């Protein structure tokens, strides 16, 4: 009994939009009249939402001894920042220029912290230790700024407002190969230059800091982030060793032009004490001025904040339960027709099989999207404020990112449901389909990120090529190249950009649908 012998008696009425609308209606009717599927999809949304709220209500991770409230320093863009350094500064009113020659940048790292002996320090190369010139709106946390600097391992750079970063001259700094730095302020615009000889200058960048007051602070700074080294992804979900470091830089030929009302420098340990824990034992912040040479020692970082808080997908754990329910429904939406023989009736009524598959994909995708949206929107909109209220540190996230995480999670639910539909149409067997889809989607994520048993390289590869790449859409904060961090899947950093990851999952769904459409035409029902 092939579809050819049962070709529709009313071929004319199946053409055009009207035919497809009826097909959609038929598939919707099939979906909504199977009670188990409707319940499964509703439960999927509810579990996502309720577990999100539960996580928010229960988690008191930050303060084991009662409620407390973290404040996360935020920059001008609203993102989390770290803003600790030593600053030798004086006021700058109106426009002006500061020029300096950097002749050295060295760092020490604390080593050998043992219960028996005192900590020692040794010289080290800290790639993102930095020192140079800065113009800032003030020394309060998260102030607007622009700076040109020499770094331990990334050449000369201009950075601004914590996230901005542009490269200048390459290579390190030494007495034999000094680096000249210059910052110029005109109104709200600050321009950074560098030079190897003090004669030929290259502009690195110009940034606008809107709303800068007439008097700002300008001068020399030094800072150095804690040394981190990734030890293993396996040990307690991706551990790293860290140690305090500091940076000491020498400058001479300080030149000032424009409105500099003060007559001396002030040394300030910005947002941290001169001997705070970020300094290696036995060292402290400060500056010396002798014979035209200024030596500045500082520790900390002026950069986006990437440790100490949770991203906003923290409350989405329940979504994985919902996802499995939706995958099972997606698989059954087609395989149940094969098991019960309904597929022959379906194809008899609508011989253009590709259109049946398209109608099924649209209905299933829409239902899964709605369930995913309800679940993830509820889990984040209700769970995250609860988490914050319980004293948990959550990275501040822009509305756009929040919308991307919520809508993206819903879209991923739909894409993976359609993937299950496609695989189901190819395999025509419910259990086989569910197994293939879950092991292709959930297992790579499990082995690479949630329960990391694979080395980082293999984990990254899995999250690039498998349908699990789409989980990247949940990533709440970006990985910053100007911060040395533990950017591994187990820390919620995915190898692909959010939309690129979703595109990989979409490609898998499209591939499964295309193969299914081809096989539906070729095979008997």
């Amino acid at each position, binding site marked *: 009994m092939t579809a050819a012998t049962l070709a529709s008696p009313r071929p004319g009425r199946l053409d055009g939009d009207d035919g497809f609308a009826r097909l959609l209606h038929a598939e919707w009717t099939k979906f909504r009249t199977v009670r188990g599927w409707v319940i499964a999809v509703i439960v999927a949304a509810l579990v996502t939402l309720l577990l999100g709220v539960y996580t928010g209500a229960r988690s008191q991770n930050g303060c084991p001894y009662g409620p407390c409230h973290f404040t996360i320093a935020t920059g001008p863009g609203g993102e989390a920042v770290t803003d600790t350094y030593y600053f030798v500064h004086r006021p700058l009113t109106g426009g002006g220029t500061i020029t300096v020659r950097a002749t050295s940048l060295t760092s020490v790292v604390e080593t050998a912290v043992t219960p028996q002996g005192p900590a020692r320090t040794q010289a080290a190369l800290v790639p993102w230790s930095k020192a140079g010139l800065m113009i800032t709106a003030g020394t309060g946390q998260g102030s607007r700024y622009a700076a040109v600097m020499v770094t331990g391992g990334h050449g000369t750079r201009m950075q601004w407002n914590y996230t901005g970063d542009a490269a200048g001259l390459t290579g390190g700094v030494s007495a034999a190969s000094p680096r000249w730095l210059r910052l110029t302020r005109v109104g709200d615009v600050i321009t950074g230059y560098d030079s190897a000889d003090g004669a030929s200058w290259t502009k690195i960048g110009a940034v606008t800091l809107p709303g800068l007051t007439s008097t700002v602070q300008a001068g020399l700074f030094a800072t150095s982030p804690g040394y981190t080294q990734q030890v293993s992804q396996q040990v307690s979900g991706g551990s790293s060793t860290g140690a305090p470091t500091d940076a000491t830089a020498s400058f001479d030929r300080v030149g000032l032009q424009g409105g500099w009302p003060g007559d001396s420098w002030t040394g300030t340990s910005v947002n941290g004490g001169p001997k705070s824990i970020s300094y290696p034992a036995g060292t402290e912040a400060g500056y010396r001025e002798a014979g035209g040479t200024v030596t500045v020692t500082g520790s900390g970082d002026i950069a986006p904040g990437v440790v100490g808080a949770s991203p906003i997908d*923290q409350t989405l754990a*329940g979504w994985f339960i919902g996802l499995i329910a939706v995958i099972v429904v997606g698989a059954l939406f087609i395989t149940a027709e094969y098991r019960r023989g309904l597929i022959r009736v379906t194809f008899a009524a609508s011989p253009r099989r590709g259109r049946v598959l398209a109608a099924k994909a649209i209905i299933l995708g829409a239902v899964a999207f709605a369930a995913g949206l309800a679940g993830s929107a509820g889990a984040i909109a209700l769970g995250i404020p609860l988490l914050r209220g319980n004293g948990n540190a959550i990275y501040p996230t822009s509305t756009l990112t929040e919308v991307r995480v919520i809508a993206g999670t819903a879209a991923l639910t739909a894409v993976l449901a359609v993937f299950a539909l496609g695989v189901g149409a190819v395999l025509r067997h*419910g259990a086989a389909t569910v197994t293939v889809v879950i092991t292709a989607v959930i297992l790579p994520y*499990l*082995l690479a990120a949630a329960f990391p048993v694979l080395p980082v390289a293999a984990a990254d590869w899995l999250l690039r090529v498998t349908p699990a790449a789409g989980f990247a859409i949940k990533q709440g904060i970006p990985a910053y190249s100007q911060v040395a961090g533990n950017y591994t899947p187990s820390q919620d950093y995915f190898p692909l950009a959010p939309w690129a990851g979703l595109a990989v999952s979409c490609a898998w769904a499209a591939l499964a649908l295309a193969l299914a459409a081809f096989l539906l035409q070729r095979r008997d029902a």
Partner: protein
Amino acid sequence: MKHALHAEWTKQRTLASTPWLLLAAAALTIIVSAAAAAATRCPSGACADDPAKVSLTGIYLGQAVVAVLAVMTVSGEYGTGMISLTLTAMPRRLTVLAAKAAIVTGLTLITGAIAVLGSLLAGRLILPGHGIGPSHGYPALSFSDDPVLRAGLGSVLYLVLIALLSLGAATMTRDAAAAIGAVLGLLYLFPIIAAAAGNATVSRHLEQIGPMTAGLAIQATTGLGSQPISPWAGLGVLAAWAASALLLGGALLRLRDAN
């Protein structure tokens, strides 16, 4: 019981899918294990990798195939209506379930042993070349080493218990797709939710009660202190899950109509 066993064996043996599933379970386990061993590198010679655990990574995938095999033993009969015939011929339903459990156990034991031996052999051949071997202070992967023997034997038992858990789940749900979804969800979701819990104590408890996270503690040969649960206790947790599923499935099988 003897007749029941014979009947179940005949059914299982004559299914076209059985040899393919068994082959797939062993082959996928060994392939993934070998790939994980090949991807692991320790140039410094001082990494936290557990050679036995790395060599047995394939169990994560192989268990899914074993679960399908066990689920289909029951759900396949419900799908085709064969169950009515089976229960008419053998009205003692618990005997039927016990016979199915015995057959599935036997098949999984053999397949699991092949999969585990192949995986450990691949690890033994591949890992020393990647900085994880006797020349770097790691013990050789050999059954003369008690923890390795425990990891190997335990992994085979783990697969058997996964099969029994799946059999119980299938008897409860009857529908194959729902059963396999429930089993894989139970296995894979505990660690994902534990990782997202954001609270070390809650995570640890979830890993202690999760059938996969607890059961696979049997694979650890180094760093036992950092495991959520001790090896045999972990396998015991999985055994409790499997026993509960079988008991509940058996009770429902007795109570409900057969379709």
